[in-house]
């Protein structure tokens, strides 16, 4: 409890709050345009109203669902491909050049292709999200599987493990810290792409809420949407940190 009321923490809170208060005062005095910067109070009132009447929950759920499904898809494919590339030279030589060429492509550049094949649909959005979110987890798991400590490899040889057992019982747990770190970055990318695809293709969600709020000059709604997005990003990041702690607890027990 003492840490919470540390003067520096209070100052941190105070500086964040004073920014908001300055903004509020400037808006009240009409020194900044209410069209661009509605006062924080107005944005909060809109946020509270829209949370109460339920009109923000559906977009929030839609965006979260898109983000999670695309991210799960990317995770599964990324870990499997990463395991193959990281543990076999043949797979690496076969796949690496192709992947290295596609990787620098901005994920949003896949949107036109995805629209051609899948139309303006959720499947399109999820595909684009998966394409963009795969790279962090793929690179991380390649690294994880390629750097299994040699003692562990020796142990699995001594135990006469087959390839499948080695990958599942030795290499995967050893690569897990890398993989989880990659998953975290992937989730952040997934949220960004969920918003991008919603804006580009008018799919219902927080991205579209923000976009249409701007088009109709409801800037308080725009800020309400931004706040919800920030909360979603924050929450997603913390959930996966919790997962990281849970999954990697055995490592902390060892030391």
């Amino acid at each position, binding site marked *: 409890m003492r840490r919470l009321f540390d003067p*520096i*923490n209070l*100052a*941190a*809170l105070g*500086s*964040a709050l004073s*920014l908001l208060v300055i903004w509020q005062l400037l808006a009240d005095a009409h020194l900044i345009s209410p*069209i*661009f910067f509605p006062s924080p109070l107005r944005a909060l009132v809109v946020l509270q109203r829209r949370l109460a009447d339920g009109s923000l929950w559906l977009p929030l759920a839609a965006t979260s669902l898109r983000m999670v499904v695309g991210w799960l898809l990317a995770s599964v494919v990324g870990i499997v491909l990463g395991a193959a590339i990281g543990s076999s030279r*043949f797979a690496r*030589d*076969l*796949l*690496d*050049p*192709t992947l*290295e*060429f*596609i*990787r*620098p*492509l*901005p*994920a*949003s*550049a*896949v*949107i*036109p*292709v995805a*629209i*051609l*094949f899948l139309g303006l649909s959720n499947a399109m959005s999820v595909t684009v999200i998966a394409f963009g979110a795969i790279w962090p987890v793929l690179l991380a798991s390649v690294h994880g599987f390629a750097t299994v400590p040699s003692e562990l490899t020796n142990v699995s040889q001594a135990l006469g493990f087959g390839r499948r057992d080695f990958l599942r019982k030795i290499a995967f747990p050893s690569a897990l810290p890398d993989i989880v770190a990659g998953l975290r970055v992937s989730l*952040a990318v997934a*949220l*960004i792409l969920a*918003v*991008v695809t919603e*804006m*580009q293709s008018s799919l219902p969600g927080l*991205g579209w809420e*923000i*976009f249409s*709020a*701007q*088009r109709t000059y409801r*800037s308080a709604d*725009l800020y309400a*949407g*931004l706040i919800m*997005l*920030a909360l979603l*990003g*924050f929450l997603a*990041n913390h959930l996966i940190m919790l997962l990281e702690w849970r999954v990697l607890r055995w490592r902390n027990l060892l030391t």
Partner: protein
Amino acid sequence: MRRLLLGAIIPASFLIIWEASSRTGLLTLESLSRPSDFVVAGYGALRDGSLLLATLQTCETALLGLAIAAVIGITAGTILGLLPTAERVAGPTVEALRPIPAIAFMPLALMMFGFGVGLEASIVAYACVWPILIVTIAAVRAVETRLFEVAAMLELPLWKRMTKILLPAAFARINVGLRIAAAISLVVAVTVEIVLNPRGLGYHLILAEQSLQIGLMWAQIVWLCLLGYVLNLVLSHLGRGPAAVWKPV
């Protein structure tokens, strides 16, 4: 040699099967186009200059945003890195702003700047400022305290302390943040163009798709791959080369 051959198997067979099945009529989907079409379309776009102009537009905006982010990020990062108290005070505000996807500010930036360079550069700058800021804070922290003692003993004025001691010592690390940001800047610039801004590569890409010039669309995607690939090469080269070390004049 073996690696080269193995690496070529997947893309080569993919393209050959695509071309062959489209020629023989196995594939009749209009939207697929065929590899030979996009070579022709890409050559045409290169010759009439439209592809290069779009590339120039995208790159200059990405660079402008990156430059803005670098100035803000390095300045603020140096201040916050030197004053740990200030960093702890500003920390929560930074952490609250950082997770908001830069793209989400697009509608706001559109209201403030209208279509054009300002809209795109401001979004790129927002996206790029965070890695630069965070790396700079860490870099300034990691500078040996002994160097500051030297500066104090030489009674260097603040400005010289910055340019002769601090920046040279921290630059190798700051450079890492700049390289991360450079890769982000191109991605964000193209994304803004695809969603909103009517200029540059992203816009031409979405335009080609919407006007069903599928060959041109594929050509631009391959072009974007190449562009990103070259950018990555240049950046990783900069990381290793002499440019990584600051030479105070």
